[in-house]
Every structure is written in C-alpha cells, then in structure tokens.
C-alpha cells in the first residue's frame, strides 16, 4: 500500500488495521506512518521491539543471518528482522517474554534448563536461541544431539555457549522420551 493510498483512505475516514496475537494477547494496530502505527516498511522485529515494547527480541545483524531476533510465528522459529509486519496479519507470535507462565511466574522448562546448564555468557543471543530450542522441542520432543545442533545453527553465539546449549536442550529431550 503506497503512502498516497493510505493518506487518501485516511482522508476518507478509513484506517487499515492489522491484527496480531503476540504472547497470547490480541493487538489491533493501525497501518500508517504515525507514532505507534505500523509502517508498511516496518519489520516484525521493529514492531515487536519499538511499537509493542518487547525488548527481549534482540536485533544484531538485521539481515537474517544471526538469529538473535528469533520468535515463533505460528509455532515456527523465524528471524523477525526478515519479515514485514504487514505480512504477519492474523498470525500468532510468541517472543521470549511469552514463555514464562503468566499466572504462576514459573519459567518455561527451556528457560530453566538454560540457567541450570549455564548456557549464556553475555546473554545477548540467549532469547533467540531459546526460541529456536523451544520451536524444536515443540515439534520434536526428543531430538538427537545432531538435531539440536542443526536447530540452533542459525543462532550466532560469539561467546560460544553452544556446547552448553546442546546439553540444556538435550536434558529436556531425554525427559520427553
């Protein structure tokens, strides 16, 4: 949708909107160029971070290479910097903020396992890596080491906490068996 189209629609009192379900909460956002609106050029990572304030979504390369911005889109792990928000209408999105049980406050088993196995050092890549691990375990409750390595291969961790990550996910995998 061009800027002119949006402007003319606005003038006619019509606002294009987009529906998103983020961390089980329903959002209806205006498409537009103003504050709090979704610019058609906005990436999903930008909308999650800057419009919805979900700062657990980290952005590093902003080009789909590093996995820091990984979120679940209808259950699949995706780099949110490579999607335009306007493409995500009607989708269900889970970010790192959505893993913890809202009522009990207890951590998701993946989060707890990352703490128990000391998986992070600087911690910047951790939310993205946890989301990749979560997507894997949701799809395959008992992955092998190889499958875990494969699932985490899109998550850049410069401190090299991958060894511990494989152990952390593997611990959950055997539990699932």
């Amino acid at each position, binding site marked *: 949708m061009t800027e002119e189209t949006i402007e003319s629609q606005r003038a006619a009192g019509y606002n294009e909107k987009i529906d998103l379900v983020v961390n089980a909460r329903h959002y209806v956002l205006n498409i537009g160029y103003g504050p709090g609106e979704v610019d058609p*050029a906005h990436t999903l990572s930008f909308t999650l*971070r800057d419009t919805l304030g*979900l*700062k*657990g*979504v*980290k*952005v*590093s*390369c*902003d*080009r789909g*290479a*590093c996995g*820091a911005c990984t979120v679940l889109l209808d259950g699949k792990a995706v780099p949110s910097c490579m999607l335009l928000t306007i493409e995500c209408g009607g989708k269900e999105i889970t*970010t*790192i*903020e959505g*893993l*913890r049980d809202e009522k009990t406050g207890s*951590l998701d088993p993946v*989060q*707890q396992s*990352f*703490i*128990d196995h*000391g998986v*992070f*050092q*600087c*911690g*910047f*890549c*951790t*939310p993205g890596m*946890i989301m990749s691990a979560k997507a894997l375990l949701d799809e395959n409750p008992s992955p092998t080491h190889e499958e*875990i*390595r*494969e699932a*985490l*291969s*899109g*998550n*850049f*961790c*410069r*401190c*090299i*906490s*991958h*060894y*511990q*990550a*494989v152990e952390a996910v593997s611990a959950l995998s055997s539990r699932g068996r």
Partner: protein
Amino acid sequence: MNTMAQTYRYIGKATPRRDGVRVVTGGALFVDDLDFDNLLYGKVLRSPHPHAIIKKIDSGRAQRLDGIKAVLTWKNIPDWKFGNPRIFRLLDRKVRYTGDAVALVAGESAEIADEASRLIEVDYEVLPAVFDDYEALRPGAPRLYDELPGNVLPPGDPFLGPTPLTQIVAGDVEKGLLEADFIVEGKCGYDNIPNPMPIESPRAVALWEEAGAGRDRVTVWVSNQAPYLMKLILSSIFGGRVEVRVIGGPCGGSFGSKIMSWRPICFAVALSKTTRRPVKVVYSKEEHLAAFVLRPASRLDIKVGMKRDGTVTAIAGDWLIGTGSHSQTTQAQVAVGCGEAMIAVRCKNWNVKPTIVCTNRAPSGIVRGFGGQELKCALFPILSRCMAELEIDPVDFIKKNFVKPGEGYLWRDGRWYDYRGIDFSQMMDKGAEVFGWKGKWKGWLKPTAVEGSKRTGVGVGVHGNADIGEDVSEAYVRLDGDGRALVYSCLAEHGTGQKNNAVKAAAEVLQIPLESVSITPGDTMITPFEFGPFGSRGTYAILTAVIKAAEEARKKLFELAAPLLGSDVSDLDTADGVIWVKANPEKRIRWQRVLFQRTILGHGRFEPDYSLSNCLMTFVEMEVDADTGKIGLLRVVNATDVGRIIDPQGLRGQLNGCLGTAGIDSAIFEETIVDPSTGRMLNANMIDYKWRTSCDLPPIENVVLETPFPTHRFHAAGVGEITTSAGPSAVLMAASNAVGVWLDSYPVTPDKVLKAVRNQELRIKKNEDISPL
C-alpha cells in the same frame, strides 16, 4: 591475611548467574533496550572513498527535513581529539578510510535521520590511498596525516609509564647467532584481520545537560566492559569542566573491542550537546564490521638462532604492525606483545624492532590477545622452521622455554620483572597426555594419519600474559544493619560472570549467604575506580580489590563488636550474620545489633603486580583433504592452571570461547577481505564474514589444574583473555603436518591448501625429472 581452610563455601562451586532469570526471560536490558523520554536517533554519513579531502559539504537539505534536530560536520563539531598521538578528530576535513565518518545527523526517528544523512551533499577531492603496510612506508606513499611523516606512529604509550616498552632489546644478537646450531630467516604475518565480532554492535546513548554554576554534565549509557575507564577516556577528551558520568549495563560481548567506542559515544555526545536531548547512536552490523576498530595486522621478518637442545640463542628482526587509519592503543599492544613473547620464549639475545604504520583502512583497536596474539601467531611458525630442522618436538620446546620461577621478562612499562609465579610444566605434561600428543606426533611435516586424500595432523601453541595483575582496581563493601552486604564495583557484565564472582568473593570473606550480597550497577557516580576486566585481570586484580574491601569491612565490624563481647578483635569470627568469640562460641552477637542505625564501609585497592603470568596451551588435531583443500578441526584440548577455580561454569565458557572471537577460527576461515583498489570491505556482513555454527563444533576438552597461586587470597588467577591466543599458530602447525608442506598464511583456506599441495607435487615431479635415480 586471614588464613582460611582450603575448603570454600562458594569459591569453586557452580553458582547460577544472578542475572540468569533476566537473561532467559528477555529482561536483561542492553543499551538499545532502555527507554528514554524525548530520545533522538543519531546517524553517521560515511565516506565512499578511502582517502579524500572534503572540498564542500552542504547540509541545508538535510537540516530542512522535518524531524531533523541537528546536523554536524567537521565545520561545526566540537574539536575533540583522541588517539596516540592525540591527532584524530571526531570529524575531520579529511577522510582516511572507506567508511570514515563525514557528518552526523540527529532526528526524531532512525529512519528520518538516515534519510537526512543521504541528503547531505559532499564534494570530495579524492586522494591516492594506500592499503598495504609495506607500501605505506615507501617514500612518496600517500600520507595520511601532516603530523605523521612516513605514516609511522611514534613509539611508546605514555599511559604505561615514563619508559614504556617499545622494542625487545637484550643481550648480544650477533653472539647469540654464532652460538646457534641452526639459523632460520623467515617472514610470517598474522594479518588477515579477523574480527572479534561481538553480537551486539557498538552503541551508546548520551545526554548533555547544564549542571548549574557554569558546569556541564554528560551522562552516557555504554555497552562495554569498563565504564570507569570510559569515563576517564571521555573526561580527557571533553576537558575538566565537564562532569562525565558513565553507566554500563549488560554488554552484548566486547572481546576487548568495545572499550574503543569513544567515537560512537562522542557522536552521541556531540549531537546531544547540540540538541540538549538524549541521543542514541547504534551502529549497523555493516558499520560495526567495516567502520569500527579492527585487530592490528602483524608482519614479522626475523632471524632465529636455535641450539639442538631447543635453546633459543637469538631472535632479531622487524615487526611491522599495520594499524589502519589510526589507533589509541597500538603502542600499548606492541609493548604487551613484546613482553608476552619474552614470557613464552626464553632467549638471552633479542633485537626485535616494531614499527607501527598507518594505512587507509579502518582503524585498529583492542582485540582479545592485545598484541601478544598478533606477535606470537607470526613468531611461532618461524620458530617451527628451526625446530623442524633440529627435530625438536614443539611440546618439549614450549616446556623448556616458557617462563619459570627465577627467570623474568621485560614488561609494558619497560622494566624487568623477575617472575614469581608458578611453574606450568606439570600442566603442559597433563595437556599433552590428555591430547595423546606422544602417539599423534610423528615429526615435523609428517601426518598423524593418512586415509586416501584425507590427512590428519597435530599442532600445539602456547600463550601467557603478565596482565593478570595489571592496573588498578578499587571496590567498597558496605555492611548494613539488616545483615546484608553491598559491593561497590564499576563492572558491567560482558559475559564472563565477573559481577557474580565479585559477589561470591565478598560472600566468601564475610561468610554470609550469596542472597545477602548485592552489587551496584556499573555507574561511575556510585562506585570507586575500576580499570575494568581487561586481559585476564578479573580474578587476580578485580577480585582482590573486592576481597580487601570485604576484609576491611569485616575488621571494622569486629572492632565494633569486640567491646560488646568483651574480647579482642583477633579473637572473633563470623558467619551468617553472627559474630562469636572463637574460644567461646556461646559468646555471640548478631550483626544487626552491632550495626544498629549504622553502616560500615570497607575499601579495597589492588596495586599492579607484573611479576605473575597465566598460561594456556592449545593442542589441535586437523583434517585436511588433499584433493579438495577442505580443512576441518577434529579436536581441541586446552590446558591451563588457574590456581583455584572460582566459577567452573564461567571458566568453561571462557575456555570454549577459544574458537571464535578471532581465536582458533582466525587460522581456519575468519578474515576481513578488503578490496585492494577501493579499500572497501567485501565481507562486512554476517553472511560473507564466516563464523562457526553449532553444526560444526569440534570436541573440546579443557584440562584445568589448580596449583595454588600463593599471593592471592583464594590462590587463583584468571585466563579469560588468553584462551583464543594459543590456537591459531597450533592450527598452522597441524595443517602443515597433515599436508606435509609448510602452510604459514592465515587463514588456511582450501585454496591455500590446494596451492601448497600442487606446489609440492610439482616440486617432487621436477626433482624426479632432473635427478633420476
């Protein structure tokens, strides 16, 4: 010193990171995650030319764009200078590398600022550029600075003292060469500029305010490991009239590099000074890789003399260090590098002359390894040639020549230090044993195994650094009436768990639950001086300051309690918030009663001590396919001796970090590729700059010995920095042995392997042709 049993309550135990829940829930707030009212976004316009004069710059159109609050160019930016010597301007009329900053824009959104930066019209007079370090030294080479004839930086970093180390000169080289059984003249470079590439790019938020009474105050929120050092750096740039406050929260990796963030920080500060609003500058990954600081390039051209028993009789020659467009720290890196070479290689006769040269590539800065990795990665392949001729096993060579008690070295301040640390021989033996060195080492240029076109080979490297006790740390420990303790230390968590360890150390001294100890944010307005976790100083230097502060607080507590218990201070002991008389534990009193409406503050200070070194040895096994050139890392064994493990999880993290952050992988595939005609970086993104993924992790075994360091309260010393440094030369050695040809160019990419294999085949063929048997 308080005598303590060898069993500890917390030291050496796995204790979960205190920030764990925040990290795994997305609640750890990095600089870009902080909320600011009225925030502006800063963007940098960068030069498309490697060397040019800005003839004309017109920012009119950019300034008129709606939402733009400031545009700064060399004409209206504060004349803040930095570097060694202090000749580098924040923005200059001249640009000196492709990606150098030309103008700054502050706007209401990042998009607007970006758009405005593209509306700035610049008229360049393009100048000839020079990218090769040797070319830059030639007469008539393009000159980067009027102040630097021949593009050579003056030697010596005044920060290191009145007589900083600028070269390695000792004994009599001519005599030493005469004593040698074999002399090799060789060249080797560690000049592929591997990038430490922390995941989080450089960034900062700055707010410039009037503080009243004619003073100005600037607060910066930074991403680096040393907020207090950053404050000193910034204060020296802005001058004493400006009060500088630096706040360091979680840092998404640094590996040394981000302490050289003065430029992005000053961009934010200059824009805030103009707008009086908070300004955020976040480098894109491309800016991070192509326009931020890089590792200096190192090229060694030396002569080495060696005896049959592995005694090195002389090392002499030139060390050329390419520092790109500028640097603040290269002279210091040279000083530390020289000292580290002396620690690793015992030799009586030295004459190594470093020259630091500027070229039109991105500037250099600090990278893990700090000069020593740069020098040693070039030195060991040359030493290897000598060892090969004399058929010396490199493990024996390292064991013989690494510094031992009773020996010594020149250090960065130009002074000689008698080494009073531990002997690492036992650790070296243990490492070799775990790796299975004796069975795998078949001799120089001999593969460990051959199966079809696949050949395996082994290699070993070593690194040690007398930085474990470098520079000053200070800390306070406050005891409160509620039985809690607060550690004041200017630490920003950058991945090593240093804040955790500071808490652990205080809890150990005070014998109170970990949950009863807190630590301040890394905020220079709150804490005393802390140089920061550089090198491997975290355990020996930083923790010592915390330990001393806790001990002083404990002593003051006893001084208050003694009269209440009717005993002497020396008769008291404490644990879990209770003080008792050692001879009569029934006589006891709670901290709360002693500290009723009172706090106690202990102060700890660590003074530099350069007489100790750490040591790490890396063994690698490589597989090379002689048909395809494919090269793979099969196995890594790291061996070290840390005196006493403080935090097993953190130590494991540091040791496993030997691969990336410009470590072992800098010898296999990591490199920065610069277009030699434009100076443009061709792989300034995370797809073309290669990094190891989780699919390609070799087995790593870490052999950790605990031989007590007598001079530390917990007998411990760190190894954090050096885990990357021993590996690269080990990879070259292993690959050479696998292929049977010397490979001495980093990284050993498949094309280099294939070229070497073909050359060897040609040579064999030629030899057959001319000398038929």
